[in-house]
C-alpha cells in the first residue's frame, strides 16, 4: 500500500520545509512585534494609571471582607425577621426602582423617536444632499460621544435635581446611538421597492412610509429594545449625579457604610436588569424570527 503513495524528492522536501520555516518565522516575528508593542503600551499605561500591586494585594482582603460585610445576616432560626430587616425599606426602594425603569423607558422612547426621524436624513441611499447628511451625522456623533452622565451633570445644573435631567441625558445619548444604528440598517435595505414606489409618483415621505419602513421596522424595534436594556443600566447610576432613580440611594448607602442596604439594593438592580434582559431578548428573537420568516 505504502508504495502507492507519492514520495516527494528530498530536494523538494527541503525547499518546502524551508518555505514553511520562513513563513512560520515571519508570522512569529509579527506576533512578537505585536506582543512587544502591546506590553510597552501596558507598562506605560500601568505607570500612568498608578498601578500598585502592593496596594492591590494589601487591599484584596478588604475586598473580600467588604463582600462579606455587605452580605445580609440571615439566620435560619429567625429567617423571616432577618429578611424583613434586610429589606426594611423595600417599598421605598421599589418605588425608586420603578422610577429608574421609567427614566430609562421615557428616555429611550424620546431618543428612539428623534433617532427615527433623524436617521432618514443620515442615510446615504435616501438623501443625496451631502451637506444635510454630514451635518445630521455630526450631530448624532456628538450626542453619542458625550457620555450620558456628562449630559446629566449639565442638565442637573440647569434644571435642578430630579429625574427629568436623567431622562433628557439618556434621551440625547439614545438619539446619537440609535440614529447611527438605524441609518446603518437603512443603508443596507433593498432599493427596488423604493424605486417602485417612486415610479408611482410618491413623495419622499411616502417612499419612506411604504418602501423603507416595512423593510426595517422589526430591526429598528430590536435595536431600540437593546438600547432600552443598556439604558436601564445607565439609569441605575444616574442618581450618582442627582438625576433620579435608585442610584442616589445606592451611592449614599455605599458612602455611609450601610452594608446590608448595599447588597439589598444591588440585588434588586441586578434582578431587574436580569429580568429586562430576558424579556427584551425574548421579544427581539420573536421580532427577528418574524423577519426571518418572510
Amino acid at each position, binding site marked *: 500500500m505504502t508504495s502507492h503513495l507519492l514520495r516527494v524528492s528530498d530536494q523538494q522536501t527541503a525547499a518546502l520545509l524551508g518555505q514553511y520555516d520562513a513563513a512560520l518565522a515571519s508570522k512569529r516575528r509579527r506576533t512578537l512585534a505585536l506582543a512587544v508593542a502591546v506590553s510597552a503600551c501596558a507598562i506605560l499605561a500601568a505607570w500612568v494609571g498608578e498601578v500598585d500591586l502592593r496596594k492591590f494585594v494589601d487591599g484584596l482582603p478588604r475586598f473580600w471582607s467588604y463582600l462579606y460585610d455587605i452580605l445580609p445576616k440571615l439566620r435560619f432560626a429567625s429567617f423571616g425577621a432577618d429578611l424583613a430587616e434586610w429589606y426594611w425599606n423595600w417599598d421605598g426602594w421599589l418605588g425608586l426602582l420603578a422610577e429608574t425603569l421609567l427614566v430609562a423607558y421615557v428616555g429611550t422612547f424620546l431618543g428612539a423617536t428623534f433617532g427615527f426621524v433623524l436617521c432618514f436624513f443620515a442615510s446615504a441611499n435616501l438623501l443625496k444632499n451631502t451637506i444635510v447628511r454630514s451635518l445630521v451625522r455630526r450631530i448624532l456623533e456628538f450626542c453619542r*460621544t*458625550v457620555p450620558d452622565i456628562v449630559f446629566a451633570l449639565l442638565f442637573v445644573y440647569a434644571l435642578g435635581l430630579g429625574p427629568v435631567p436623567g431622562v433628557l441625558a439618556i434621551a440625547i445619548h439614545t438619539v446619537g446611538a440609535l440614529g447611527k444604528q438605524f441609518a446603518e440598517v437603512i443603508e443596507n435595505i433593498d432599493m427596488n421597492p423604493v424605486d417602485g414606489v417612486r415610479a408611482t409618483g410618491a413623495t419622499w415621505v411616502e417612499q419612506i412610509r411604504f418602501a423603507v419602513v416595512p423593510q426595517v421596522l422589526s430591526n429598528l424595534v430590536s435595536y431600540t429594545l437593546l438600547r432600552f436594556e443598556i439604558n436601564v443600566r445607565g439609569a441605575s447610576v444616574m442618581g450618582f449625579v442627582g438625576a433620579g432613580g435608585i442610584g442616589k440611594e445606592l451611592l449614599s448607602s455605599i458612602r455611609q457604610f450601610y452594608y446590608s442596604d448595599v447588597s439589598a439594593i444591588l440585588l434588586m438592580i441586578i434582578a431587574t436588569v436580569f429580568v429586562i434582559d430576558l424579556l427584551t431578548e425574548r421579544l427581539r428573537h420573536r421580532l427577528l424570527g418574524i423577519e426571518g420568516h418572510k
Partner: protein
Amino acid sequence: MMSRTSLLADVDRARLVQAFPDIFRPSPLNRLKIAAIFVMSVGLFLFGMAWLGFSFEKLAAGITRLGVIVGLMFPPNPGNLLRLYLKGLAETLAIAFLGTMLAAILAFPIAFIAAKNVVGQRVIHFLSRRILDTIRGVDTLIWALIFINVVGLGPFAGILAVAMSDLGTFGKLFSEAIETTDTKPIDGVASTGGSVLHRIKFGIVPQVLPVILSQVLYYFESNTRSATVIGIVGAGGIGLYLSNEINQQNWDHVAFLIIMILITVAAIDFISSRLRFALIGRAAIVPS
C-alpha cells in the same frame, strides 16, 4: 386609453388580492394587536412623563439656563490647567487600555469553562453564566465605588472597575464565540489523539481569536467613553476635572474638556475600527 389601463389594473389587482390576501385584507385581530401595542407604549410614555414631573415651564426655564451656560462655554479655554487635563486624559486612556486588557486576559480561560461545547457540564455552565451575568449587571461606576474601598481613590480603582465589569461581558461574548465554532477542526484534532488542551489550542483558538480580538478592540473604544466619566466618583481620569469644573461653573473649562474627550474618542474610534477591519473585515460584531 385611460379605460384600458384601469381595466388592466383591475385584473392585476384581482390577481394580486388573490395571491396576497394578508396584505390587502390584514386580519382585524392583527391590526388591533398592533394598535394596542402602540397605544400602550405611548400611554406608558405619557404616564412616565407625568410621574417623573415633566412640566413645560420647568423645561423652558431649564433650556433658557442651558442657553446661558452654552453661551458662557465659548470660547473654550483650559486656563492654566492644560497640563492637569492632559494628565487626566492620559489616565483615562490608561484606565481603558489596562482595564480592557486585564478583562480580556482573565475572561479568556473563564470563557472556556462557561462554554457548553468545552466543559459539557450543565451545572458548571449554568453557574458560570449566572456569575458572569451578575458581574455584568453591576455598572462600571458601582464597581468603581467598591474598588475605591479596596485600593483607595485614583486611576488604579478605575482600571479594576473597568476590568471587572468587562470581565462579565467578555466572559459571555467569548464563550458564545467558542460555542459557535465549527466542530470539524476540533474533531480532526481529536482523531489524531489530541488531548482537550490540544483540541482547544489547535481546534478552537484559531477559529475564535479574530472574533475575540475584534470584540476586545470594540470594547476598548466603548471603555474609553466610560473611563471619561469614572472620575466623577473619584476613580481617576478626566471625569474628576469635568465634574469639578461643572460644580465650580467654569463653563469655558468644561467646554474645553468636552472637546478634548470628543477628539480622543474620535481618534480611538478611528484607530480601532481600522484595526478591526484589518482583523476580520467588515463583518458585524455583537453591539453592546
